[in-house]
């Protein structure tokens, strides 16, 4: 599906708000709160496919996303920051939703950090319209407070934490009742700390909802051997395993490209995977019997996959 860049607004030197409009059709497919789209971003000799959360649930006349320029960007977010202009056409797919609002929850506790606020921006109007019980705590760096403040409605249950110490995570989590679901979105370290804290006080897995796109930051190159396809491929430093498979003309399973959905899981026959996803359980990671090709790499010089 084609989308035209309608507007680009800088929220800060590294964060841009981008509005997309349908090119041929009158409207886009509706995306519920928490949905994301995949953007195909043209690069020199290749195409980046990045997942971005829709930040406004309302209206199918446009999709709105917020993009942070990633310091170690492999190219996608840097292109959107440096080369994207209103009027340009991009190929997009979706929306899909791996992070919906839990219907069974009687209260929603939303915890985000940095650019992880984006899915919650689509939650807020829905939760407010439903008059749902919720709390949002957004953490950011001190110098980014003024970037995020205008994005958040002023309300007693919405708090912006501009420094590391202002959110007492343990106290907040421990004070929640049995009827509360937890949603976490942000950088890997924030996700890990928050989810570990919740589990330590007995939060059941089914009430912890998480999403984090990213991790596809590149790394050391390695060789992947494909047992069924009888192929041997080189995965470059700035290339993901999934991209290496696709560049070789294969059609491996994939969807979100951000380590969240679990669709791209492939069985590992040899070598040690270096997991960067948010899908596999701790036990499955340790077992090393499967890998999410979109974000994970190899700890060994070679990886053998059943594909």
């Amino acid at each position: 599906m084609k989308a035209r860049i309608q507007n680009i607004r800088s929220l800060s030197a590294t964060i841009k708000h981008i509005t997309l409009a349908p090119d041929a059709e009158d409207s886009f497919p509706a995306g519920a709160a928490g949905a994301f789209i995949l953007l195909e971003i043209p690069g020199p000799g290749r195409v980046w496919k990045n997942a971005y959360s829709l930040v406004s649930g309302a209206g199918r006349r446009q999709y709105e996303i917020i993009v942070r320029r990633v310091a170690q960007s492999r190219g996608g977010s840097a292109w959107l920051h440096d080369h994207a202009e209103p009027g340009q056409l991009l190929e997009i797919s979706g929306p899909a939703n791996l992070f919906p609002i839990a219907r069974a929850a009687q209260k929603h506790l939303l915890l985000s950090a940095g650019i992880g606020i984006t899915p919650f921006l689509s939650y807020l109007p829905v939760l407010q319209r439903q008059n749902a019980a919720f709390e949002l705590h957004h953490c950011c760096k001190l110098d980014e407070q003024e970037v995020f403040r205008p994005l958040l409605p002023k309300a007693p249950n919405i708090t912006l934490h501009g420094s590391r110490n202002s959110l007492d995570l343990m106290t907040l989590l421990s004070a929640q009742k049995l009827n509360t679901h937890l949603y976490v979105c942000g950088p890997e370290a924030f996700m890990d700390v928050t989810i570990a804290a919740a589990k330590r006080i007995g939060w059941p897995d089914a009430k912890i909802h998480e999403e984090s796109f990213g991790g596809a930051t590149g790394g050391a190159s390695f060789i992947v051997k494909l047992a069924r396809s009888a192929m041997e491929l080189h995965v470059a430093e700035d290339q993901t395993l999934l991209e290496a498979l696709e560049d070789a003309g294969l059609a491996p399973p994939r969807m979100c490209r951000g380590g969240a959905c679990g669709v791209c899981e492939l069985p590992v026959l040899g070598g040690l995977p270096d997991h960067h996803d948010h899908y596999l359980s701790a036990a499955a990671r340790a077992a090393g019997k499967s890998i999410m090709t979109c974000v994970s790499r190899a700890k060994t010089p070679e990886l053998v996959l059943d594909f």
Partner: protein
Amino acid sequence: MGLNKSRPIYEKLRIDPQGRAHLIVTDLEALPQDTIEANLALSNIEIWVVARIARGIAASPSGSRAFRSVADLLSHLSFHLAREPVGLRLYAAGTEAFLWDVANTARAAGLGKDEIFLTQAGSLRRRVYCTHCKSMNEDAVANIATCRACGARLFVRDHFSRRLAAFMGVMVDAEVPNEIPEIEVIYP
């Protein structure tokens, strides 16, 4: 009976190590030891029992609380769960109707599947829902029960409703009035 998909499958009572605190409730006077595979000496376990006619209330051991009736226990449970912080695991042990009364109370308080554990113990007596007048009939022990509300003779089916926490009772002599099969005690 094992082929009936509406019949839940119960397991022995095991403490979930992921939980921060544990509450065990039973409609029996004491926990049935043969259905328990757990170390109940752990510090963060509380046990609620039903000691009818206030028998033994004063003697209940520490970490344990006795209630006068199932209704009394369930109303305290509802109050307790609305105030308890996240991390509690709830275990119910006892008759099937009680288990699902507890499960439904817990679900209304926002507990999910992985926070509630059910262990069947004690009598197999059934709560029977009269599908004709929609009344509940407690403690059916035979294949045929008489509805206390409308007087219908009910065949106690194996069809169990978790929502109603009861077995379905359908008129046994609907085809030929007063033709009642032999009554047998099969749910002692």
